[in-house]
């Protein structure tokens, strides 16, 4: 029962977390900030909004990419943290889904057909090659340690102690997946406007925002799930909030890297991931 409640409520929780995040962000910048329920209002407004007089590119992918993006991020909650629907190899499916959600960013960027959107997508692609590889390697580490390919069988006490290096890797991967400074280069508003979302408006933008919020929630849930497990529910909830705070804090207190610097950092992460895996296997 809890599983289903959590799954259905995931978009709402995600939006609420966005609100909390924005409020925290504002308070750290010494201002009041929007009310906590602001993201809900934003999304409702975006859905309400009509068409623009000069429509941009209206090809098939442009319409469909944000929706698939949102659905993909939601489906990920079928497996984590409570396995609603569990089968053999669902760990691999999850890896596939996270990569797909990144790929949809790229698709959305290319579909929008504006040089800024395309450039955002290109940046995302360059960085994706590096970080998705290390992410996959990192998850393989957990698969090797726990010896299971089914998320339902994942040890509830977590695997931090067996692979402490993974904590660092996961945090860094999380911040680039979520476009948190210093690694939000693909979305850098001062360089390429809003990146791939530049050309979207109305409902498409709403789905992108929702998807972003869901992805944020997913990583805040997924990282503690892998590291600490869901053994103690209260501790788990606390850890989720802790990660929300850490990510917000990182956004507040760092500037952004350039693309080549991001790639450099993630090469180091890749090497760390390899070491991590090798260490566990040996």
């Amino acid at each position, binding site marked *: 029962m809890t599983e289903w409640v959590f799954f259905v409520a995931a978009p709402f929780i995600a939006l609420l977390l966005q609100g909390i995040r924005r409020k925290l962000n504002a308070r750290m910048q010494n201002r009041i900030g929007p009310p906590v329920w602001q993201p809900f209002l934003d999304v409702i407004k975006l859905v309400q909004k009509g068409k623009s007089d000069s429509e941009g590119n209206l090809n098939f992918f442009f319409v469909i990419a944000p929706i698939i993006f949102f659905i993909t991020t939601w489906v990920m909650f079928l497996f984590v943290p409570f396995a609603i629907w569990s089968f053999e190899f669902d760990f691999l499916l999850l890896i596939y889904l996270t990569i797909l959600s990144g790929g949809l960013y790229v698709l959305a960027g290319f579909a929008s057909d504006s040089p800024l959107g395309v450039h955002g997508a290109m940046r995302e692609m360059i960085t994706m090659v590096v970080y998705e590889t290390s992410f996959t390697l990192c998850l393989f580490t957990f698969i090797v340690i726990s010896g299971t390919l089914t998320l339902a069988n994942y040890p509830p006490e977590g695997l931090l102690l067996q692979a402490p290096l993974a904590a660092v890797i996961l945090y860094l991967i999380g911040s680039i997946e979520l476009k948190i400074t210093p690694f939000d280069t693909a979305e850098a508003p*001062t360089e390429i406007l809003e990146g791939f979302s530049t050309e979207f408006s109305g409902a498409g933008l709403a789905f992108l925002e929702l998807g972003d919020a869901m992805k944020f929630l997913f990583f805040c849930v997924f990282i503690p799930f892998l590291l600490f497990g869901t053994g103690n529910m209260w501790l788990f909830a606390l850890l989720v909030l802790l990660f929300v705070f850490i990510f917000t804090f990182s956004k507040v207190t760092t500037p952004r*890297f*350039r693309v080549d610097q991001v790639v450099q950092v993630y090469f180091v992460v890749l090497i760390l991931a390899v070491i991590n895996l090798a260490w566990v296997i040996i």
Partner: protein
Amino acid sequence: MHNTTLPIGPQHPSIKEPMCLRIRLDGNNIENADLRLGYVHRGVEKILEGKQVDSALYVAERICGICEVSHTAAYLSAVESAMNISINDKVKYLRTFLIELERLHSHLMWSGFLAHEIGYETLFMYSWRERERILEIFDKYTGGRVHHNVSKIGSNKYDLPENSKKFIFDRLDAVAKHAEKYRREFEKDNIIKARLENVGVIPEKEAKRYCLVGPIARASGYKVDVRKDNPYFAFDQVDFNVITRNEGDAWARTLVRMDEIQESVNIIKQLINNMPNEKLPKPELHMNASGEAVGHVEAPRGENFYYVKINSGYLERAKIRTPTLNNIIILEKILKGYELGDVPVIVGSLDPCFGCLERIMVAKDKKIEEHDEDSFRKKYCEIQKPEVSYD
């Protein structure tokens, strides 16, 4: 990767004003840059012609909303020397006070923009909060946050409000304290350094060849500062250093500006402490004066130069040469070879702002339009202007 041409602007968040920078990219590297301007061209010099000298002051102030005091000050020093008006110490002190306050607000604003350009929202917010404190002083003294309308030819409209010393000093101290913190952040933070160091390097030789002015020249080790070289108003009576650095990159430009904040705070404190106790002369209209002169002041971005010719109380010609005009020319040169991600940093570190710069509008891009002077004139100068009225 293929070549793309990326338009940056005219409506773009990293540039506070519209300019169109077309960047030809080879993959992620800049192959060529093409600057198109003219979006904020307003024909100011032409408007100034034929205006009464006292009224023209307010139009000159509105050439720019960032260094408005520099514009009025340069205009005033030109006009006053053309008409042989000598001003007393009190007026000099008050004007110097405004000029330095403006430098503070401009540099703080700029540091916020730079932080914003490298994605550092918090530093942007903090810098702008400090800038608000400076604007509070402006507000208290002049009643205007951006345009102040206090200068008059030969005089000044207001004296400092009574008992405002503590008010001003409180704010200055807070600003100095915080600015020092942010300076250290710019100096020490590794990510900021990774973004700013060795980006957009201008060697001293180039700086001299391109006649750069202001903090940009000073960051390349080229010591030019009108305040020291040719003191105007009360700058010969205060004690300050001209800050220079030798690196010539975006990082050096940042630090020069952050250091100048401290210098400005010191200058203002000296000014307030030594404020002479004279009376302000009563401002009057100058209906018969004639003459011709130049004036220049050190605006936050460098030397601001005015030439005026006055004929029986009316401006016959005003020529303005502003710092951004000198500094922007080097932009296309130093952009080459860097990455797209460096564009906001380089553009930002030059601190261009086009309010004052744009006085000629010839778009050079072949595909769009090409004008020689005649066709340009025909197209843009003989527009039938509709009479604007509300009824």
